[in-house]
């Protein structure tokens, strides 16, 4: 057994130095952390400012777009044609040609992504223009692949009376389950 000698107490001076060093270290850490928090808060504020600015820009752009549309296509003469697809398993859309009063006003080729977007419920503004009040004829020619991957071309006609207000027309491609054929409908929005 080891004889128990007198234990040497650590030097008080060292204790003081270590304690002071620890205290200083803590103070520095706290100061650094406070700085970091402040810097992070500043970054957050700048980020918020940038986001707010971006939102303002988007709003401004939208207002300008609306203004431009109102000026170029006044409500009294405006005609807009939209296209939507409902289910569409019997028809793979490739392109749409739109004629108003015998004149081609739009001819649109659809990419796979655009067709997919339409299948997901997207509605495309196919044409926006001006027409005088009175009777007009709209002919839409759809091309694509029909049942059994066959080339398919189908036209649909709408005779409509343009009044003083804006006119909205929707071209809708739907499935006719009974006949296993696609159906091309034209609907006027009031």
């Amino acid at each position, binding site marked *: 057994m080891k004889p128990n000698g007198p234990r040497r107490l650590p030097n008080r001076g060292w204790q003081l130095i270590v304690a002071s060093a620890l205290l200083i270290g803590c103070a520095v850490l706290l100061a650094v952390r406070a700085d970091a928090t402040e810097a992070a808060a500043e970054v957050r504020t700048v980020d918020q400012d940038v986001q707010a600015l971006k939102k303002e820009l988007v709003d401004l752009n939208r207002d300008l777009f609306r203004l431009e549309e109102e000026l170029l296509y006044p409500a009294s003469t405006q005609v807009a044609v939209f296209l939507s697809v409902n289910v569409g398993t019997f028809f793979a859309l*490739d*392109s749409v040609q739109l004629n108003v009063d015998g004149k081609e006003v739009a001819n*649109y*080729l*659809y*990419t*796979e*992504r*655009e067709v997919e977007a339409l299948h997901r419920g997207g509605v495309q503004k196919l044409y926006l223009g001006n027409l005088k009040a009175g009777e007009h004829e709209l002919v839409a020619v759809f091309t694509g692949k029909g049942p059994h991957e066959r080339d398919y071309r189908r036209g649909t006609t709408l005779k409509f009376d343009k009044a003083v207000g804006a006119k909205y027309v929707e071209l809708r491609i739907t499935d006719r389950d009974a006949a296993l054929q696609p159906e091309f409908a034209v609907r006027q929005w009031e």
Partner: protein
Amino acid sequence: MDSRDRAARARLTALAHTFALAVAALAGALFFPFIAHAAPATGAQAPDFALKDLAGRNQRLSEFRGDVVVLTFWASYCGPCRVALQSARDAAAAVGGTPVALGVSLDRDATRAASVAASLGLESPSLLDTDQAVGRRYDVQHLPMTVLIDREGVVRRTWARDPVPTDVLLQSIRELQP
């Protein structure tokens, strides 16, 4: 009397010439917007278009937004166009496939474009501009014409008449990479 007649005739001729000139100037002013097709300037947004590729798929330029696009206008009858297509293909491959090399064939006969694309082994989409509407929008006057479009859809450089050397194209693409 004769001199009077001659003077009157001369006046009439001058009047007719002035009238013809005025009509021509008016017609030019009226139809200029329909016949003028300025090429998209550097820094301008590249005009969007949709065309069928050789595989029958529809391709729209704006759908490649986010990638650098090398757009090469070519035709089967143009020899240097093959060099330009190869240059675009090699530059795109060297960068790692991130830039998209799109060829726009101005051939009216799609089979000719298909045979050239097959002979060059082009894997990137070859678009068919059979009615040359896109060629007119980009004001293609000399073949080949290569247009470098950045990730935002802005025209950065255009080369016409001579094929762009691969290293020059590569350098220009790298400048647009993030």
